[in-house]
């Protein structure tokens, strides 16, 4: 049976070119970049080359980038960093109820330590209203953190507009751009952000490496204390192969971005259209147009997400769901609930996220397989009966 991977927002395969670029740094140029002998300096050079590639893609200066172990660390670093560095100035953070767990749980951890957090409302498409940001600002506000695009339902937020408001109010502005960097154009100056999180494994780079953009002049207490790596901003022996791979992945993403964007947008729209046509009682979650170009998120009435996923998996299709049952908590996706969905609909969500290897055939296959699965599950659903 062929396998159709439609979960690129969860993670991507590392591009073979990326693996190739990484390999010498495991066994050959393996020196510690902090060492002064030439052998360590070579590794250091490779890191700096990667840094300038990443910086270049997002319109930043090399010195403004700090490599991390992934998107989660970048979010923790940014949010806790601003909170701890600016304790004397204030203790209020503005964010949204649809941030990734990495942002959300970090904010909650700060709430338990006395920080006040405002979770702005979002509309039924998941959009934040910049006016609400403006209104939420107090003289104690030290940080605004709004994600660039949501990983679950794909809505792209008005970051540039919020950036203007943050700048006027002179408040640090962080965005989690894990789902956008490498996929759509991201420019830290156009967005007006001071801090921006990235993760390599979402753009065909390796797992376990990411970066935080920190605008020049931003004071930020380190999150990882220890040695003097990353200009004393992030301790620990650098993950040289990972960083090199990240750089190479960024380079490839840049080359292919325009073409891929067009191709994936077409496939995405094909899938959305097909699903809405072939399955009744189904709805698209997230914004129709202000949307990640590879994201399809639907809620299917009367059936639960995990059972759809398992059936899809049996047919060789990898997808994802906001149903609780696929995680170790039981509440359904807080992101979908924030859009106003009922718990049933949140449990009945399915996410397909497209990527490099997908073709029209994959879409056709999903459109052939999923309606049957839904029919089978609906036949055993007590919810359907109760509506007859």
């Amino acid at each position, binding site marked *: *049976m062929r*396998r159709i991977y439609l979960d690129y927002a969860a993670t991507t395969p590392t591009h073979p070119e990326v693996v190739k670029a990484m390999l010498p740094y495991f066994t050959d140029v393996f020196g510690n970049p902090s060492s002064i002998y030439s052998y360590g300096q070579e590794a250091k050079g490779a890191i700096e080359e990667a840094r300038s590639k990443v910086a270049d893609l997002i319109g930043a200066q090399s010195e403004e980038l700090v490599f991390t172990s992934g998107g989660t660390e970048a979010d923790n670093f940014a949010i806790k960093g601003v909170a701890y560095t600016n304790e004397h100035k204030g203790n209020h953070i503005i964010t949204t109820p649809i941030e990734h767990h990495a942002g959300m749980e970090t904010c909650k951890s700060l709430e338990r330590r006395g920080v006040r957090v405002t979770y702005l409302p979002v509309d039924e498409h998941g959009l934040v209203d910049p006016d609400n940001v403006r209104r939420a600002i107090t003289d104690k506000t030290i940080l605004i953190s709004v994600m660039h695009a949501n990983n679950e339902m794909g809505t792209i937020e008005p970051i540039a507009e919020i950036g203007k408001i943050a700048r006027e109010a002179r408040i640090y502005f962080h965005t989690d751009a894990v789902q956008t960097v490498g996929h759509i154009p991201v420019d830290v100056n156009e967005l007006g952000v001071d801090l921006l999180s990235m993760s390599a494994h979402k753009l065909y780079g390796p797992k376990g490496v990411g970066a935080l953009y920190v605008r020049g002049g931003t004071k930020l207490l380190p999150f990882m204390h220890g040695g003097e790596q990353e200009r004393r901003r992030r301790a620990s022996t650098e993950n040289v192969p990972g960083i090199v791979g990240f750089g190479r992945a960024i380079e490839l993403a840049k080359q292919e971005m325009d073409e891929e964007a067009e191709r994936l947008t077409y496939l995405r729209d094909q899938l959305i259209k097909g699903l809405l046509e072939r399955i009744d009682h189904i709805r698209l979650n997230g914004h129709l147009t202000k949307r990640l170009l590879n994201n399809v998120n639907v809620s299917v009435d*009367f*059936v*639960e*997400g*995990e*059972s759809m996923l*398992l059936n899809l*998996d*049996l047919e*060789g299709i990898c997808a994802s769901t906001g*149903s*609780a*049952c*696929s995680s*170790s*908590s*039981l*509440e*359904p996706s807080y992101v979908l609930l924030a859009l106003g969905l*009922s*718990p*049933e609909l949140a*449990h009945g969500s399915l996410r397909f996220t497209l990527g490099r290897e997908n073709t029209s055939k994959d879409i056709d296959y999903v459109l052939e397989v999923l309606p049957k699965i839904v029919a089978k599950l609906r*036949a*055993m*659903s*007590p*919810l359907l*009966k109760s509506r007859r």
Partner: protein
Amino acid sequence: MRDVLSLYSEKVMEHFKNPRNVGEIENPDGIGHVGNPVCGDIMELYIKVKDEVIVDAKFKTFGCGAAIATSSMVTELVKGKTVEGALKISNHAVAEALGGLPPIKMHCSLLAEEALKSAIEDYLTKSKKGKARRHKENAKCKIQ
């Protein structure tokens, strides 16, 4: 591709793929209705009783793979048992019969046990053969 997902045992997947006793019983002697849409699991269990023996059982379930498999299994286990015997079927027995469940899915087996108890109570109440016992509260949205 492996046919069986390592999250679940082979037996669970077998019941998930081919659930037994799906549907409703016309004029059932007892109905159990448990679960909660917030938690993402809703089970309906129907039983037919003759001479204190459960002669048929069917279910309808909205829920994850484990919820469907435990529903299927509990209907299998219960058929042919006396009402008293059926009351002794514990969630662990259901899970065991399925070759085990991942820890985070054990609550599904509890739900199946509750659905069964609830159906039997319904039967006992209707048939006035016993006083209504309070069945346990529905599982909260919490992992047991």
